[in-house]
């Protein structure tokens, strides 16, 4: 279980635990005798015998076609079909040579596939920092409205780590349960940023939902990066 820092309505903060629930797979595929199977990766072709390389080697498609009729330049009898593991992604130029110095560029596109902006790629920085607590923004949204406004794709459960944090989280859950509402929480120094759980991660808006049952509580963070709304007319992706 990871640690997170969160504030309540009274601006009191506490470090608590949070964890996801991994859905269990109900079905698996096995061999007819019940034995386990193993998935493998096989080499189909290499860069030096794929089409673009062969066209360069024989100058043009016509020459390549003639060679293909009499020989099998597109098959590597030694290596085709071999098992491959631990592949590394590399970048190359048009001559299929590895390029060692690259820079990343983001091309931001509109829903209609037109280019909105091109800029240098900047990796998102994680902002779940235990030194800066997640902020109780005060923006409450009724559950009934929240579920019809946002798609909640990921969830985490907050859990107490001692008696004090039990009281802290239980009170939050009780408040939210009584109001049948969810609370928008924000990250970062200003407490209004979306949550990013690790460097390079996706920003999500986060809503806190609480339920109580006697002395027990359930406090969930629901994450969303998609609104429930109609697709407009001019959104054909090419």
């Amino acid at each position, binding site marked *: *279980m990871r640690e997170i820092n969160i504030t309540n309505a009274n601006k009191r903060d506490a470090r608590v635990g949070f964890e996801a629930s991994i*859905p269990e797979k109900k079905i698996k595929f096995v061999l007819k005798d019940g034995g386990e199977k193993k*998935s493998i990766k096989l080499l189909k072709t290499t860069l030096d015998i794929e089409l673009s390389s062969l066209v360069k080697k024989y100058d043009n498609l016509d020459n390549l076609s003639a060679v293909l009729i009499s020989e099998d330049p597109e098959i590597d009898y030694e290596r085709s079909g071999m098992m491959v593991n631990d*592949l590394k*992604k*590399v970048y190359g130029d048009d001559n299929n040579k590895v390029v060692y110095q*690259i820079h990343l560029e983001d*091309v931001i596109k509109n829903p209609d596939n037109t280019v909105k902006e091109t800029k240098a790629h900047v990796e998102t920085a994680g902002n779940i920092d235990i030194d800066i607590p997640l902020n109780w923004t005060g923006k409450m949204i009724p559950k009934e409205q929240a*579920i019809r406004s946002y798609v909640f794709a990921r969830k985490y459960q907050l859990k107490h780590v001692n008696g004090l944090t039990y009281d802290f989280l239980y009170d939050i859950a009780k408040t939210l349960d009584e109001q049948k509402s969810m609370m928008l929480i924000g990250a970062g120094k200003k407490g209004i940023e979306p949550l990013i*759980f690790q460097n390079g991660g996706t920003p999500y808006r986060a809503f806190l939902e609480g339920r109580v049952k006697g002395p027990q509580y359930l406090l969930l963070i629901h994450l969303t990066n998609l609104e429930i709304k109609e697709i407009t007319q001019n959104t054909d992706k090419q």
Partner: protein
Amino acid sequence: MARELTFQLNSSQFPLSPTKIDRSKLYGWTETKAMDAQNVECKTFYMDNSGTIMIPKGGISYGIVDSSGKWVNKTDLQAVYNDGTPAQIISSSFSAPIVLDKKVTIEEFLDHAIDSIYELNGEISELVKLIGKDIYTFTYCYRDDYEGNPAFVMESKGKLYLLVGQRLDFEFIGIEQTGIVSEDETEEVSDDIDFSMM
């Protein structure tokens, strides 16, 4: 013609076409490109751990073997439940009317992580009135398969949506169930496109 899901409620049937909603359609998307020193876009390929084999995109295939390394065809596999009993095929949701006879509470709905959402298009006005503020659930299967997913039909701003997801098992906890934080724990997450407003 788009495939239709036929929903049945109170003995009336409503054929509707689902259109998937994703972030690219609402907000656009970002393509990340690798550029060389001359600002020319680079290609991507793969290298094996010996560094001697360069593999283009599409140069890898996948296969299945048994414990002794012998090749196994997919048709030779069987689907089983976790207890080892043979799994049963579930028909595609497109093959027969979906009877909406099971409702869930808001909390039961929130116990699910939603993987995909579809706008339901067609003659929806009567079905919108019948559904009201209820949330109906059924098991959704895109094609005949061994496992379906929990799906929900609900109204939002006069439109109907189908949400498909996975049930998560969160439990109520009391003071005795104190959690233990582990600093080494990491989580694998998939990277998706951002909200355009972020």
